[in-house]
Structure formats: C-alpha cells, structure tokens
C-alpha cells in the first residue's frame, strides 16, 4: 500500500523543500517508486531545487481541473529513475487546491507509486492544511530555534486534531522529527538548543539531524538535491534519514563537534 508522507514545519525557511527533494530522491535511490508533490501553489520552488524548472509544462491545478492527465503533468527526475515530480501552479492562487481534487490525485498516484511525498507550504493556511490532510506519516522539519520549535508544536497539534486520520478516528499520523541546520559547535557552547532539548519539548521520535552546511546552498544553486552531493555531511545525513525511515537502525551522526586537526593528532575522536 502506497504511503503518503507530508514534509511540514509551520515556519518558513527551515528546509522543507530541501528535505522533500533529498528525502524523495533517497527513497527512489533505494528502488522505491516515488513521487514528490509541490503544494506551494503560487510560490512553487520544488522544481528549482530538483532542477527541472524548465521542463514544467503542466501542474497540479491543471490536473485537478481535469485539463490534463496526471501522466502529462508528472516530470521524470533527471537523477533517479524511480522519481517523478508534480509541480505546483505558479499563477493560480492557493484556493484552487481543494481536498476532493487532491484526494482524487493521491488515489490515482497510489496505484503506481510506493511513496507520495507532499512538500507543504509554510503557514497553517489552506495549502499547508491540504498537504497534511491525507498524510499517513509526517516529517516535521525543525530548526534549533525557538520560533521554529513553537511552530512545529502547533503543526503537531493540527496533525493530531484535523488530519483525515484524526477526523476519521483512524490510527494517528506517524510523526518524525527532523532537526535541520544543526550546529554542534554552537550547541556545545550553550548558544543553540540541542537535539535532546528539542526532542524533550516536542516529544516525537527523532528521525535525523541535518547539520548546518554550505553545501545546501551549493545544491540549490545547481538544482541538484543535496543528497546527491559528494563528500557532504548533509548528503550522508539525508541518506541516514532515508535508511532510518526504511527501518534501518543507524546511529545518529553529525550531532557532536567534528574533531579539529590537533584533537585528531592528539588521539581525540
């Protein structure tokens, strides 16, 4: 049975689209038939992060309105064989997304995909609500910063009360915490919330920690999801996230400071 996963956060700029791109790529790299949908109608950006912006012809609103078939709107990813992208509309407003239309699309996608990743827009308005409504699982992307943690908590409240699973009294949406832009150095000096602090506050299982890194900007500049970068902590961290999501028991990495040259020389870790 296909799984619908929403990548959400409440707050903007924390790494939802970066995560959607890398997470869906990671799932596809492991042979899962995967589709990633941009729900940010009016402000689409997943296409840029995936590097397929010039191949967008039709979008999700065209499909909802019955103007084109789903097949016509899906864009095949340039890096992964099993990955397709369904872009958001750039010209329509977010009210064009309706629950019935989205449900129809998701039901059709479920027939041919294993995973459907929904990249939520920021906020708690209709776009974000529609993106999370049908979710089976949720990746809650959180920065180690007070406003992001608070917004994540709000989103968790909405998932628990207003998602389809909640409304219909089914098993609740499975929640995963993903801490991004993490800087162990600043955590050690007491200048940043630790991953333990965040987990203690939000009280949901930790799926992974993505370190703060220049390579995220490098990846978005190039239009290549960060998970594909060579010799990058971010890429490895995202691969771990996907592994854990698929049920592998992997130790958390990138949560402690990298040993400097002298420390290593002196036999530090």
């Amino acid at each position, binding site marked *: 049975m296909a799984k619908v996963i929403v990548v959400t956060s409440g707050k903007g700029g924390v790494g939802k689209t970066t995560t959607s791109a890398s997470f869906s790529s990671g799932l596809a790299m492991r042979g899962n038939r995967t589709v990633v949908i941009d729900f940010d109608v009016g402000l689409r950006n997943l296409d840029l992060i995936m590097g397929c912006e010039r191949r967008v012809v039709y979008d999700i609103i065209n499909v909802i309105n019955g103007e084109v078939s789903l097949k016509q709107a899906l864009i095949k990813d340039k890096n992964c064989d099993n990955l397709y992208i369904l872009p958001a509309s750039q010209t329509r407003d977010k009210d064009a997304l309706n629950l019935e239309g989205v449900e129809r699309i998701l039901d059709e996608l479920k027939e041919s995909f294993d995973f459907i990743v929904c990249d939520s827009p920021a906020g708690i308005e209709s776009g974000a609500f529609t993106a999370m409504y049908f979710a089976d699982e949720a990746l809650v992307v959180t920065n180690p*910063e*007070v406003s992001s*943690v*608070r917004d994540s*908590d*709000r989103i968790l*409240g909405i998932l628990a*009360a207003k998602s389809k699973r909640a409304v219909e009294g089914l098993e609740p949406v499975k929640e995963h915490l993903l801490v991004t832009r993490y800087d162990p150095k600043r*955590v050690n*000096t*007491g*200048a*940043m*919330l*630790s991953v333990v*602090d965040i987990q*203690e*506050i939000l009280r949901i299982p930790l799926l992974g920690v993505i370190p703060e890194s220049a390579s995220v900007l490098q990846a978005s500049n190039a239009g290549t999801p960060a998970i594909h970068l060579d010799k990058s902590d971010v890429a490895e961290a995202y691969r771990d996230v996907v592994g854990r999501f698929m049920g592998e028991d992997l130790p958390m990495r990138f949560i402690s400071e990298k040993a400097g040259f002298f420390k290593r020389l002196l036999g530090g870790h």
Partner: protein
Amino acid sequence: MSMIVGLIDYLRGNEKKSAVVAKERLQIILAHERAGRGTATPDYLPALQEELMAVIAKYIHIDRDSFKVQLEKHDQYDVLELNITLPDKINSRV
C-alpha cells in the same frame, strides 16, 4: 538582591546560557498553548464580558475596571470566574 546574584553568576562565569533560556521559554509557552488546544477556546470571553456588563449596568452603575471575567482550566473542569466590585452605594440605579 537578584542583581547581586546576577553579578556573582557573571563573575563566576555561570551566566545562564541562551539555549537554556530558550528551552525554558519554550516549555512555558507551549504548556500554555497546548492547554488551550482541543478544548473550547476562550475566544468568546471578551464578548461574554461585554454582554454581562451590559446586563449588570442596567441595574447597577459599575465601573469597567471593577468587572473581571476569567476562565481557569483544571484537569477535569474549567472555572468561569466573574469578579464584580460593586460601588459603595449599591442601589444607585442608573
């Protein structure tokens, strides 16, 4: 007093780290926000206060400041508290 404690802390170098402050602030605000979630939100309180005041003002001349409506949340029940300070001469009809 707290200034001296603060100064000693500062000199000793055990000034509260900002991450600790962040965590404490989050725990307090989220406890508050979670408590209000799922239950009837007290959005109606201002309207309720206005209407109650209008009714009481028909009979007794009261000051806006002498009228308080509060909703306290407990585990099993909520308490709606009305606190009206009546003027000295209670039968002063408007």
